């Protein structure tokens, strides 16, 4: 198996709180990798450090064989890592289609001059962006809402739209931060189908999730964070039986607090 992303000794401190300490993990190409842990374990912080929203205090990420820039989100996206957010963050005044089109920004080039003169290159690029965005809406199953302003979409559809927008950046690694949060059982099942489809299409998925059933059913491997430390990393069935993990979730054991 080829390694896609390797995190080496990532550390991040907020004042007196050590949010991440020496976290190392490896994600292989083509797998669905789960990142779980109790609330406040540092999962989202890990995402933020990975995607450049925060700068890590120590450690480095190696993506596709070379080091990732830190603290520069647009460069990270350019290298092929896209993310969604725990609390949905869409561009509320834009339609579903325009949201996805905006997601295509980094793969397009039109500048002010091209836009003002509307030269052939710009027009062609704009047409392709529109078509691609529509295809992506279809891919996640919300193409009938293409012309709806995104803030008026239902919760489940907003989640889907956010995934479509992330896919528009043409990522190799898609990082989903609690995609099933607030979804009912049917929506979660549909989401599972979508994520499996994304994996089949060759995109590696990294997933933060609380829904244990979803994680166990979907992930090839799982890492568990607790108080900013990685306490386990293995296939779901093994992790499930790991004593440190059980202690972290249920309290007691050596992590008693």
């Amino acid at each position: 198996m080829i390694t896609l992303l390797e995190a080496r000794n990532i550390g991040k401190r907020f004042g007196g709180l050590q949010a991440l300490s020496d976290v190392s993990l490896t994600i292989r190409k083509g797998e669905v990798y789960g990142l779980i842990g109790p609330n406040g374990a540092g999962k989202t912080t890990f995402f933020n450090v990975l995607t450049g929203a925060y700068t890590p205090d120590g450690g480095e990420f190696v993506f596709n064989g070379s080091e990732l820039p830190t603290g520069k989100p647009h460069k990270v996206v350019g290298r092929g890592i896209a993310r969604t957010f725990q609390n949905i963050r869409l561009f509320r005044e834009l339609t579903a289609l325009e949201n996805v089109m905006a997601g295509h920004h980094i793969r397009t080039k039109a500048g002010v001059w091209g836009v003002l003169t509307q030269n052939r290159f710009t027009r062609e690029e704009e047409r392709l962006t529109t078509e691609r965005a529509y295809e992506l809406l279809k891919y996640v199953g919300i193409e009938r809402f293409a012309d709806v302003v995104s803030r008026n979409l239902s919760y489940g559809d907003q989640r889907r739209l956010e995934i479509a927008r992330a896919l528009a950046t043409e990522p190799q690694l898609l990082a989903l931060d609690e995609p099933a949060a607030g979804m009912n059982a049917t929506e979660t099942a549909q989401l599972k189908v979508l994520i499996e489809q994304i994996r089949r299409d060759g995109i590696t998925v990294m997933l933060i999730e609380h829904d244990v059933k979803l994680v166990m059913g979907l992930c090839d491997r799982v890492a568990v964070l607790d108080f900013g430390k990685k306490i386990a990393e293995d296939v779901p069935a093994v992790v499930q039986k790991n004593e440190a993990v059980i202690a972290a979730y249920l309290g007691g054991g050596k992590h008693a607090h």
Partner: protein
Amino acid sequence: MNELAAAIPWLGKRNPTAARWLILIIALVAPVIAWQFGRSWVRILDFALLYMMLAMGLNLVVGFAGLLDLGYIAFYAVGAYTFAFLASPHFDVHLPFWTILPLGAGFAAMAGIMLGFPVLRLRGDYLAIVTLGFGEIVRIFMLNLNYPVNITNGPQGINMIDPINLFGWDLSRNLQIGENFSINSLFLYYYFFLLAVAGSIVFVHRLQISRVGRAWAAMRDDELAAKAIGINTRNMKLLAFSLGATFGGLSGCLFGAFQGFVSPESFSLMESIAVLTMVVFGGMGNIAGALVGAFVLALLPEILRDVAVPLQQTLFGHVLLDPEVLRMLLLSLAMILMMLLRPAGLIPARARYSHDHHLSNKLKQEAAK
């Protein structure tokens, strides 16, 4: 233009084409009608067009990119002073109009980037305060740069600026057609400014429905998410400031040439606020809103000046409230009422950020399959 046409009551929804023609006709005959009330009204219309350009430029920054700018008039000042320096007896330089125009726009854009860099990390209130300060700094520079070396001529301003000269055609002279028919210079300026506004509409609209416009809107709606999909927010902010400033600079050049005189007084904080009010009043984030807001609020004080004094004299026998005081009062009242009744502005249209026909073509293809 479509948004503007759609905003016309009744006609806009039933027959958009007719509505568009109506707007065009009104725009063309407006100065002729205004002339009936006196030549000063044509002059007021000319200024209204300049305000429209300003409002469109500010709308780019505030409405599209979501960057509150309270010092926008500084770019207008940069444009106007550039023109004054390069085409007046002050330095005894008289460059041609078409040379100064890009220079004025360029200097204003540079000023925009100068303002943009320090405020990259600021948002909301903080951004507003710094931009406000920037506007004041520029004005105070203009006011005081007459000593030890006289550059701006201080509070006296610069006089006798060359008029607009289009390849030898002087717009400040009445156009003589035949023996006894002539077109007043004010009309010539009107139609020239109208062309400038039309060009600005086309440019701003093209920006809006492009990759650039979407990136601005994305940044405005959620900066963190915009970064997370790979938008370089620093560059997009600088671009918004500099392009917005370009419009300010261009209209500043036109203002200097049209008025023939510039002084720091024309570029006070109140002017910045007035332009911002036009954008908010008309409907933030859409071109039609900026145009209507600018038109209404540029005309309002003039109408007031003409109406308020005689009205008060007939009602009370003497003038109770000075028109200038009344103007502020009514403006504030209008804003309060707007916020209560129509918080999204006179024309609350949602701006589009993509070409309609691309999607409809795509849908047709899909249907054909």
